[in-house]
């Protein structure tokens, strides 16, 4: 409990660092909200018009004043107003987040459900033909870019079977679960395939390591069956690297999957951030990055807690 408090206490510090970085970084990109909105027509503005627009966007002040205002707002729970959507930043993010979260969870389920058994299978059939097969597929999975796989899936389904992925307005899970799943299943497979490939590779190598450990030999000397050796003795010891990898990948997915969202036309966080950067929607970019960083920290915390649950040798709070 004490540990949890101390970990949570570090969150504001990290977020402060992230906020400065993103604030400065987005302002280092050439152009501003006005040119982004008006394009070449921005050149036609009179200085007075320009000043008035700058004051409207709040970019007429020096950057530290802007930063101060922004941070002050955050402390009052106000992430600012998105200029593209004309609505509070937090509202826009919260509207987009469920899809991203669902997509991340679905991909992770697919990755673990496919990757772990495949990895264990390969490890227990080490250097046999089946192991080579699994390793080859995993290698392909890791090295295929998601847009290739995504387009391949769409093409195969439409050209081969005449089925099109469910398009159109996105249906949230709680309104129309069936339609929602039919919209998300293909993107989830696209993302989950590479994820599963990583999980396969890491669980295979972790399992191989563990299977040659002394305590596995002890288990066999007790008369434990092959199944019990794998599931009861080896697997819990092999899980740590799998959890580490899954945590990192899951954290990235919570930041949105730009390419897959683009291919399947999904309104997720990734596309939102990309658009916001192109529009120089400073408030939205900053808010989204803070939100993503916060999620990442939560995931990391959960991963650390999972370590403790998995391995009694790991104690929280010890250096």
């Amino acid at each position, binding site marked *: 409990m004490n540990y949890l408090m101390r970990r949570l206490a570090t969150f504001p510090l990290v977020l402060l660092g992230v906020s400065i970085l993103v604030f400065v970084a987005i302002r280092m990109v050439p152009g501003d909200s006005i040119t982004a909105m008006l394009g070449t027509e921005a050149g036609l503005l009179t200085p007075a018009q320009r000043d008035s627009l700058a004051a409207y966007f709040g970019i007429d002040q020096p950057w530290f004043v802007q930063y101060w205002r922004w941070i002050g707002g955050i402390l009052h729970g106000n992430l600012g107003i998105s200029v593209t959507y004309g609505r509070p930043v937090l509202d826009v993010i919260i509207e987009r987040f469920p899809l991203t979260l669902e997509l991340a969870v679905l991909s992770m389920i697919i990755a673990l459900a496919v990757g772990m058994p495949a990895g264990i299978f390969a490890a227990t059939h080490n250097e046999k033909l089946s192991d080579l097969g699994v390793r080859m597929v995993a290698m392909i999975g890791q090295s295929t870019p998601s847009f290739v796989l995504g387009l391949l899936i769409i093409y195969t389904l439409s050209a081969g079977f005449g089925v099109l992925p469910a398009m159109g307005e996105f249906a949230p899970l709680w309104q129309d679960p069936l339609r929602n799943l039919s919209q998300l299943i293909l993107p989830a497979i696209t993302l989950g395939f590479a994820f599963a490939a990583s999980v396969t590779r890491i669980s295979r190598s972790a399992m191989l390591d563990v299977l040659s450990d002394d305590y596995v030999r*002890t288990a066999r000397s007790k008369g434990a069956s092959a199944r019990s050796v794998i599931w009861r003795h080896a697997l819990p010891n092999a899980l740590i690297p799998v959890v580490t990898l899954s945590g990192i990948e899951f954290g990235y997915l919570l930041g949105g999957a730009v390419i897959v969202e683009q291919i399947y036309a999904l309104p997720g966080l990734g596309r939102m951030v990309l658009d916001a950067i192109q529009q120089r929607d400073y408030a939205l970019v900053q808010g989204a990055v803070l939100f993503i960083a916060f999620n990442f920290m939560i995931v990391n915390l959960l991963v650390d807690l999972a370590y403790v649950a998995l391995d009694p040798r790991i104690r929280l709070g010890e250096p």
Partner: protein
Amino acid sequence: MTPLLSVSDLRVGFGRKPHANEVVRGVSFDLADGETLAIVGESGSGKSVTALSINRLIDFGGGCITGGAMKLKRADGSVFDLMTATEPQLTGIRGAEIGMIFQEPMTSLNPVLTIGSQIEESFRLHRGLTGRQATAAAKDALDRVRIPDAARRLKYTPNQLSGGMLQRVMIAIALACNPRLLIADEPTTALDVTVQAQIMALLAELKRQTGMSMIFITHDIGLVAGIADKVMVMQNGQAVEQGELNQILDKAQHPYTQHLLQDVPHFANGSATRADGQRDKGASTEPALKVDNLVVRFPLKSSFFSRASGAVHAVDGVDFDLMPGETLAIVGESGSGKSTTARAVLGLVRSTRGSFSVGVRKASAQQSALPVQMVFQNPYASLNPRLSIETILAEPVIATGGRVNIKTRARMAGLLERVGLPKNSLERYPHEFSGGQRQRLCIARALMLNPSVVVLDEAVSALDVSVQAKVLELLVDLQREFGLAYLFISHDMAVVERIAHRIAVIYAGQIVEIGDATSVLSTPQHSYTKKLIAAVPTIDRRHEHFELDTRQVPSLVRPQGYEPAPARWEQFGPDHRARAEA
């Protein structure tokens, strides 16, 4: 009467071509009910592979049985063919009829499961017990191996128990279902000598109680005298000699058995100490190393900001001096503070208090200003595998700001020759050398800077017994030649007897007895020294068992500000004193 286990012409190979790559080449033996066979050999002799072949665990270790026959008489009198048995049949035999314990108790138990559930597993697998019954059976099994407070310890995970305790747990698991054969593969090699005596006593007692047979594998021929009925000596995958215990120990026929019995250090209660290089009592020479009231404490803190709540008193007021050309052996068990003492002398850990004076008097003019060098225990881990021998030997010179020039190279070549390594070693890499050769390299590296004191931290412990003897010889020769002073840290009394002039026995961070080697080993005065010496296995004590003792090592954690009571010393001779006991 049919034997319990009959092995004939067993052959085991490894790799893709097991027939061409055999490490066990035609081993045969019979084992009767209630009999103990000791298999003795050095690493690579095939003794462990033979053991793992009996319950066919070798199948999982990359090995392949290429020939021979193995028959086990089962409890109901039927004969079971271990050779042709299928894997499901074998799982019914393993643990139920053949139990096994291993060398390394620290890694042989599953780190993420409680010891209770690991013991229960045997009962679940072979007796069909579940729930409370299994837990109760597990508690009984722990009681049987004399683990105090068994009910509570069932909930412990392996990291919460000491090595000796874990080996007891292993024995509890192996004997859970009363197997009729126990295979013990170097069960005490990783343990301290007093703990080893306890485990041996426990095994002997359990064997008496249950009437089981045992195959006891060891590299230490001294250990077999206490437990074996028959002995088989293995070398290069073959049994070179086997027979009754007394016949092997007293009338060994094969030269290798004779070599193991005679050329290898055996403990002789102080009658085999060195005759050369004794301390010159009259002359007032300055010591090469003088340590005064050395204290090393590690503060215990619950977090970075909080104040220390106590301290681990790893070394608590150690004094000694070391003359040029002399060996002071520091003996003690793991956790006694002997290695910390050595590290403090080298400056690898900071001493809390105390003073050193090093190199007060140099044995010869060429000795360097950096007087202390070290040789570590594990020759496999203490040489960087990516560096050539030339770089490794140049390292101390470069680290001290020297240049690698013709003189340095000449010294490298000279030292390599002196430690008995081939001339072309310089361009080679550590993996091309055997364990003994690597330790010679480490010695050469330590001598590169021409030190006056060399700290040898368990420097021969990881080596095979016959290699051990040769490295010890080399150390003695080098000591005479260069006038080196050795601080020799060891737990092995037989080795210490061969090399030490003086011995300091360290217990719980304090020296309890120090003095002339012959005197300390032949007439130990402190109760701990006596216990330590009594626990050393020797070939002279046959079928002699130790008292079971479940006392734990005292904790070295003391409250903040604790100071030990000043030592009172009793003198037992010109150079032999021991701490007075309460």
